[in-house]
């Protein structure tokens, strides 16, 4: 296992290099002068000053040199400075990682927890009215895009009914309060979770339905185990493996969800920062975000693979 993890980490290094190189190269294809994002549009600089600034920023050097320079800085733990306002990129992103992980984590817990629970119920009561209603919900849940769910949720639960605040991370001006944070968190997290409840439920239902038809379940029943033990212990553990595969696939999409929901609910996370970077063509920021997101995704994939081995003792990574 240790060697497997080592190898996976070694493999991700060229992958990260490829991703950053690709992004760096693509960003240079953008029409327009990268220097423009450093200069406010309403205060044009004289040509001589532009040339001086270009030289100072290293923008007059060839592309590979600029990439290597970026790489050198990055390896020293410095992701450069934002074009828009000169803030250091690294701390600016790190500052936003917490809220995004909190939002995604809560959504994932709600999605998987509720999804597995409903999936088990649907599998045990297969083809009952309840099962059909859940299937219908799953179909809507999967077809409902997160931005639309976000708008509808904000409209209904924050603006019309007023159960939740209309966005933000906490009430400004009020000191730290756990309840206040949870109150702000629940609605956006639940909105992101809808998709995952629906798809986790569908996968659990079909995996569980399959497991319940296996011989070992019949054996367990035949030897007089209670239905709770049969379902909760014997069938569920085997049904969880395919579900775990799906959860790994959720992670990239969770990030997409975060981008939309952070924008709709003014959540101060990485998604909004990224959008801001894209809007203002802030290359150092886009590069930094791409690198950090890539690291997060690769780490999450590795964790998922390790989780398989923990759930299923038959899997051994050499």
């Amino acid at each position: 296992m240790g060697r497997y993890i080592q190898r996976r980490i070694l493999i991700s290094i060229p992958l990260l290099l490829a991703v950053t190189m690709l992004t760096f190269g693509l960003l240079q294809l953008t029409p327009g002068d990268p220097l423009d994002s450093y200069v406010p549009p309403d205060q044009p600089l004289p040509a001589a000053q532009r040339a001086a600034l270009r030289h100072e920023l290293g923008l007059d050097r060839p592309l590979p040199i600029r990439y290597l320079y970026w790489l050198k800085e990055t390896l020293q733990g410095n992701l450069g400075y934002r074009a828009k306002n000169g803030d250091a990129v690294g701390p600016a992103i790190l500052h936003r990682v917490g809220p995004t992980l909190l939002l995604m984590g809560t959504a994932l817990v709600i999605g998987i927890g509720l999804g597995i629970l409903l999936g088990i119920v649907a599998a045990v009561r297969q083809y009952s009215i309840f099962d059909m209603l859940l299937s219908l919900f799953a179909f809507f849940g999967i077809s409902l895009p997160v931005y639309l769910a976000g708008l509808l949720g904000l409209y209904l639960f924050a603006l019309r009914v007023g159960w939740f605040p209309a966005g933000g991370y906490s009430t400004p001006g009020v000191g730290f309060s756990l309840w206040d944070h949870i109150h702000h968190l629940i609605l956006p997290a639940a909105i992101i979770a809808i998709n995952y409840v629906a798809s986790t439920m569908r996968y659990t239902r079909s995996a569980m339905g399959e497991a319940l038809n296996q011989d070992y379940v019949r054996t367990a029943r035949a030897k007089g185990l209670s239905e709770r033990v049969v379902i909760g212990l014997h069938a569920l553990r085997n049904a969880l493996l395919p579900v775990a595969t799906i959860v790994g696939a959720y992670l990239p999409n969770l990030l997409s969800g975060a981008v939309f929901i952070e924008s709709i609910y003014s959540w101060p996370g990485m998604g909004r920062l990224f959008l801001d970077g894209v809007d203002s063509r802030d290359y150092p920021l886009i590069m930094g975000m791409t690198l950090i997101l890539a690291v997060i995704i690769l780490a999450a994939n590795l964790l998922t693979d390790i989780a398989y081995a923990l759930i299923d003792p038959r899997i051994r990574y050499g």
Partner: protein
Amino acid sequence: MAEPITVDERPARALTGDAEAALARRSVSLSPRRQALRRFLRARVAVTGLVLFVVIALLAIAAPLVARHSPDAIDLLARNQGPSWQHWFGTDRTGRDTFARTVYAGRVSLAVGFVAVAISVGIGAVLGALAGFFGGLTDGIVMRFTDLIMTFPPIVILLTLAAIAGPGVGMTMLIIGILNWPLPCRLVRAKFLAVREQEFILAARALGVPTRRIIVRHAFPSVLDVLIVYASLGIATAILLEAGLSFLGLGVQPPTPSWGNLLNVAQNVDILENQPWQWMPAGAAIILTVLAVNFIGDGLRDAFDPRTNG
């Protein structure tokens, strides 16, 4: 979900031999009535999806006949009006008719969906066929490339590409198409890996048929069903991506209406709360279209793959 029985509507006792045995095996957990209900619902669902989709597509195609106003006609005397007989879905900030804009937006959104899928299927089928048929180095390079793209959150690539390419209808089609080719590519590759070992390919080779012709005429027909299923579900994905991108202001740009950029106004809390008719119709159109396409796609998958269940 297709059952191993094809004689659906007849009572069980009318079945013969194998079919009856098959039915007996399956009905351990299912009463015949419930089975019938399931098949009925499933077929019904696919047909409903098809009807819904045809209605939506016709509305979009016949937009000039359906809408009584031009989507671009500004009427400053009728700004932000609620739904009325004159304006079925009300008007927006500049007095444009929301119904007309929603219907015309359907043209743009559906076109983006179809063209984007055509691009991704085109790239995916060619690369997948080459990778699957030739294997070796070609296969390795193509597969590593799909790995790379599939590892990353679509929206991150999409936003970066959109920032690079600049917004617009054509660019949006291209970006979504380029983003989505790895999946059809893998489907085609997997199928080709299996097909190239079969006797009829060997026979074609022995007869001296050119490789190109073997790929196109002999191997390719076997991936058509997989591609059709992918394409139908892929259209839903593409429509959702277009709407998301345009919602963030990075896709189709106003004044050209698309379902996504009609939703964009809802980022303004005042409009979100007080003029819901300006964004809800576009939202409903997206949901209905995606539901319809998913229903059709699921029906097709079941129709093509007798093993699917659940």
